[in-house]
C-alpha cells in the first residue's frame, strides 16, 4: 500500500503531464473553431499556421507558469508585459517568414509614419487568439495548482482546503463549459447561411470533429481532476491507497469515454419528420391497427347479421392499414420510406429519452421532488385531496351504517348476502362484545409483531400504542382509539355494545391495512 502522506512520485508527475496535454488538446480544438469562424468571414484565408502558434504559446505558458509563481506582483506584471511584447514581435516576424521578408522594409517606413498600421487585420486576430489561449491556459493551470496536494497542507485546516479545491474544480468545469458553448456557437455560425451576417460568402461545411475531441478531452480532464481531489482528501485522512489506482483510473476513464463517444456517433442525429408529425403518424398507425383488429373480431357477427338480412353475405374483409399513406411525401426515393420513418422515430425517442433521463437524474439527486412538496400551494392541494378522500370514506361508512340500521328496523334485505364458505375461527359467534374487543387487540398485537414491532413484556397497552404510533405514523388516531377501547373492555365493568365492538373491528382492519403498506415499504 502507498503510505499516507505526500511524495512527489513518478505517478503524480505523469498525471500532471497528462493534465497539461489535455489542456493543450482542448484549447487547440477551441482555436480551430475560432479559426474556422474567421475563415467563414474571410474566405480563402490560409490559417493552418495559427494552430501551430497556439500550441507553441500553450507550451510556453505551461513551462513558465511555475517559474513566475514565486515572483512578486510587480515583477509578474513586468514579466508578462515583456512576454507580450516579445510574442507580438515574434509573431510579426513569423508572419514575414511565411509571406516573405521583402515587405518588411516597406512596412518599416510605414510604421514610422503611422504605427497603427503595425496591427493588420490578420495579425490582430491571431494576436487576440493567442492571447486568449494564453490566458485560458494560465487559468487552467492556476486551478490545477490550487487543487494540487502539497505536503505542507497537512498543517492547514482540512475543511478550508477541501472547499478551496472543490471551488477550483467547479470554476474549471464552468470555464470548460463556457469555452464549449463558444465553440459550438462559432461552429454553428460557420455552417449557417445567413446573408445578413455574412453577406454573399458561402457556408463552410468544415469537419467538426474538433468539437467532439474537445468534449472528450474535457470529460477526461474532469475525470483526472476528480482523482486529484479524492487523492488529496485521502491524504489528509490517512487513507491507505492501493498502488496502481491512478493508472487504472486513467485507463477506465479513457475506455469509458471512448465507448460513450462511439455510442454518440452511432446514434441518429438527423431526422426528416418533426416531432408533431411523427406523433400524428404513430397515433394514426395505432388507430388503424386497432380498427383492423376490431373489424376482424366482428366479422363473424357481421356475417350472421347478413344471413338474417337475407342477402348473400358480402365478404367485406377489412382493409389492412395503409402504412404507405402515413409516410410524408417528402421522402426521398433512395431510402425506403419505412426506414426514414423508423429513423425519425428512433431519433426522437432516443433524443427525448436522454433529455428526460438526464433531468430526472438531476431532480432525484437534488431531491427537488421533496422540495416541491414543501411549496405551500402544492401542500395545500395535497391536503385538500386527502381531506376529500377522507370525507368520502366517512360518508361511505355512515351510509353503510345507516343501511344496516334500516335493514334491522325494517327487516328487509336490500340485496342477497353472497354465500361464502364460513371461515372457522375458534369461539367465533359465541364471544361477547367485550371478548371480541380483547381477542381483536391480541390479534392486532400478533399482526404487528410480524412486521418487527414487538411488544415488550413489561409494556402497558398505552406504552405499546405509543411505540406503534412511531412506526405507523398515518394511523395514529386509529391506534389510540383501538387501545382506549381495549382498555375500556379489559379493565372497566361497564357494558360494551355490539356497535363499539364492530367499530373496533373496522379500526383494527384499517390498522392492519396500514401495516401491510408499512411492511411493503420496508421490504422496498
Amino acid at each position, binding site marked *: 500500500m502507498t503510505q499516507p502522506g505526500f511524495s512527489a512520485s513518478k505517478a503524480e508527475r505523469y498525471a500532471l503531464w497528462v493534465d497539461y496535454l489535455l489542456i493543450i488538446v482542448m484549447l487547440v480544438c477551441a482555436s480551430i473553431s475560432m479559426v474556422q469562424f474567421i475563415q467563414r468571414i474571410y474566405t480563402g484565408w490560409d490559417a493552418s499556421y495559427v494552430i501551430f502558434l497556439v500550441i507553441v504559446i500553450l507550451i510556453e505558458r505551461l513551462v513558465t507558469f511555475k517559474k513566475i509563481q514565486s515572483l512578486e506582483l510587480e515583477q509578474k506584471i513586468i514579466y508578462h508585459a515583456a512576454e507580450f511584447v516579445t510574442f507580438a514581435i515574434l509573431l510579426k516576424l513569423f508572419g514575414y517568414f511565411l509571406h516573405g521578408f521583402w515587405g518588411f522594409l516597406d512596412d518599416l517606413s510605414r510604421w514610422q509614419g503611422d504605427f497603427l498600421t503595425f496591427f493588420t487585420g490578420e495579425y490582430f486576430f491571431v494576436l487576440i487568439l493567442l492571447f486568449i489561449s494564453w490566458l485560458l491556459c494560465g487559468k487552467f493551470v492556476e486551478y490545477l495548482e490550487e487543487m494540487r496536494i502539497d505536503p505542507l497542507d497537512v498543517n492547514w485546516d482540512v475543511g478550508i482546503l477541501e472547499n478551496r479545491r472543490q471551488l477550483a474544480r467547479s470554476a474549471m468545469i464552468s470555464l470548460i463549459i463556457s469555452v464549449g458553448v463558444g465553440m459550438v456557437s462559432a461552429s454553428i455560425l460557420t455552417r449557417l447561411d445567413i446573408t445578413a451576417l455574412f453577406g454573399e460568402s458561402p457556408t463552410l461545411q468544415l469537419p467538426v470533429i474538433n468539437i467532439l475531441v474537445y468534449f472528450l478531452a474535457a470529460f477526461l480532464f474532469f475525470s483526472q481532476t476528480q482523482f486529484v481531489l479524492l487523492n488529496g482528501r*485521502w491524504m489528509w485522512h490517512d487513507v491507505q491507497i492501493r498502488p496502481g489506482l491512478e493508472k487504472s483510473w486513467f485507463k477506465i476513464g479513457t475506455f469509458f469515454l471512448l465507448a460513450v463517444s462511439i455510442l*454518440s456517433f452511432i446514434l441518429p442525429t438527423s431526422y426528416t419528420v418533426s416531432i408533431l408529425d411523427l406523433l400524428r403518424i404513430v397515433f394514426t398507425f395505432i388507430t388503424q391497427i386497432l380498427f383492423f383488429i376490431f373489424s376482424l373480431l366482428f366479422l363473424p357477427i357481421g356475417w350472421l347479421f347478413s344471413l338474417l338480412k337475407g342477402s348473400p353475405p358480402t365478404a367485406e374483409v377489412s382493409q389492412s392499414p395503409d402504412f404507405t399513406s402515413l409516410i410524408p411525401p417528402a421522402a426521398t426515393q433512395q431510402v425506403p420510406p419505412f426506414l426514414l420513418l423508423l429513423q425519425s422515430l428512433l431519433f426522437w425517442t432516443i433524443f427525448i429519452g436522454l433529455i428526460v433521463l438526464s433531468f430526472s437524474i438531476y431532480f432525484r439527486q437534488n431531491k427537488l421532488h421533496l422540495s416541491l412538496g414543501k411549496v405551500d400551494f402544492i401542500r395545500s392541494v395535497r391536503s385538500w385531496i386527502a381531506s376529500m378522500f377522507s370525507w368520502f370514506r366517512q360518508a361511505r361508512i355512515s351510509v353503510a351504517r345507516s343501511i344496516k340500521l334500516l335493514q334491522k328496523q325494517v327487516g328487509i334485505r336490500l340485496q342477497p348476502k353472497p354465500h361464502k364458505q364460513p371461515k372457522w375461527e375458534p369461539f367465533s359467534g359465541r364471544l361477547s362484545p367485550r371478548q371480541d374487543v380483547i381477542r381483536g387487540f391480541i390479534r392486532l398485537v400478533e399482526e404487528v409483531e410480524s412486521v418487527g414491532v414487538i411488544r415488550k413484556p413489561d409494556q402497558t397497552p398505552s406504552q405499546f400504542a405509543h411505540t406503534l404510533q412511531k412506526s405507523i405514523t398515518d394511523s395514529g388516531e386509529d391506534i389510540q382509539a383501538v387501545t382506549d377501547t381495549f382498555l375500556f373492555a379489559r379493565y372497566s365493568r361497564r357494558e360494551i355494545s355490539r356497535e363499539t365492538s364492530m367499530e373496533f373491528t373496522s379500526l383494527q382492519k384499517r390498522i392492519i391495512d396500514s401495516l401491510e403498506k408499512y411492511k411493503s415499504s420496508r421490504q422496498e
Partner: protein
Amino acid sequence: MILTLIFFIILLVILGAMTGDSFVFTVIYFISISIILSNWWLNYIIRKVKVERKFPSHVFPGEVVSIDLVAENTSILPAPWLFLQESVAVELAPAHPIRHAFNLGSKANHQISFKLFPHKRGYYSLGPLSLTSGDLLGLLPEAYQRFAIDFITVYPRIFSISNVSLRSRSPMGGIKNYQPLNEDPSRPIGKRDYRSGDSLRRIDWKSSATTRKLQVKVFEPSIAYQTLMMLDLNPSGYYQKSIYDGSELAIEAAASLASWLNAKKQAFGLVSNGIDSLTNHLALQFPPRSGSANLMKILETLARIRLSSSQSIEEMLLQKFPGLPSGTSLIMITGHCDAMLFTQLERCFLLGKDIVLILCGEVPGLQEIKRKAGILSIPVYHLSSNKDFKGWQLP
C-alpha cells in the same frame, strides 16, 4: 456541476432545434449518455460489491487478533474506486485508522488485513463498515453502503490456580480424598482378605479363585466439588475507591475458578447480580454443571457482564439459597462483607453449606471480617491485585 451541464444541454437542445445541425445532437448525446451511464454504473457497482469480515469471534486479552476484510466485486463491470472505512471500539486499540482506497476489477477481490490488540475483557462491536464509491467524472454525489456490525468477545483473564482449599461434602466424585469415609466403587485401588462384615458384593471372585482365599475389593474414597460461585457486581458491594478494579478482580477470580474446576472435571455454576451488556438484563444464571460447554458459557457471560445496582448480593443469596442442591460449596466473591451478609452466610453455614469468601479490591476492616469468618470456619481469601493469584498456586 451537474446543473451547469444540464443548462448546457438545454442550450444545445435549443441550438440544435433552431439549426438542425447534426453535430449538436452528437454533443448532446455525449454529455447525456456520460451522465446517465455514470449514474447507472455507480448504483450498479455499489450494490454488487460485498465485503466480508473474517475474524475470531472469541479471544483472550493479550492475544493479537488478525482481522481480514475481503471486498469482492460480483459484477462484470470494474469498480473505479472504492473507499472502505471500518469502525473499531476504542478499547480494541487498532494501530491506525482503518481506511482504504482501492479499485476492483470485474469479479475481482481485495483483502485488507489489520490487527487488534484487546487488553480488556468485554463485548466489542466491529463496524459498521462503510463503503463509498463515486463516478469517474465527479459529477454525481457519492453512493454509500453500510455493512452489518459484528461482535468480538474478549474473555476475562484467567490465572492458573492449583491450590484452592475447597471442601466438599459430596460423597461421590472425581477428586481423590484422604478421608476414608466415602468410598467410590468406580475407583478400585487394591484387594485384601475377606473379613467378617464385608459385603458379599465386594468379593472379587477371580482373585479369590486364584489365591484360594476370599478377597474383597478396596475402593478409594473420593469427593466431588459441586460449586456455585456467587459474583457480586453491585457497586455498593465494593469500597468506593476500588469499585472498578475490585469488580474486575472479582470477575477474573470467577473466571479462574471456573477454569480450575473445569480442569478438575467438577460441576460448577455461576450466579451474579451484574447486567449482561448484550441483553441489558440480569446476567444468565448457571446452575452447577460440569463440562467445557458450561465453562465457555460462563466465560462468555463474564466477558460481557458489567456492574449493576439492581440487586444486592444479600438479596441474591436469599433468593438462590433454597434452590442449592445438597453438597454444594458456595464461593462468595464480593468486595465487602457486612453484618447483613454475614447473617446470610451464617444461615448457610448452619444449614450445612460449605462457604468460601473471596474479597476483591481494597477491603476496609479486613481483619475483622477474617475474625468473624473464622468463627464460622469460613476461609477468606483477599485479592487486592492480580499478583495475589499467585497465592493460589502450588509452589
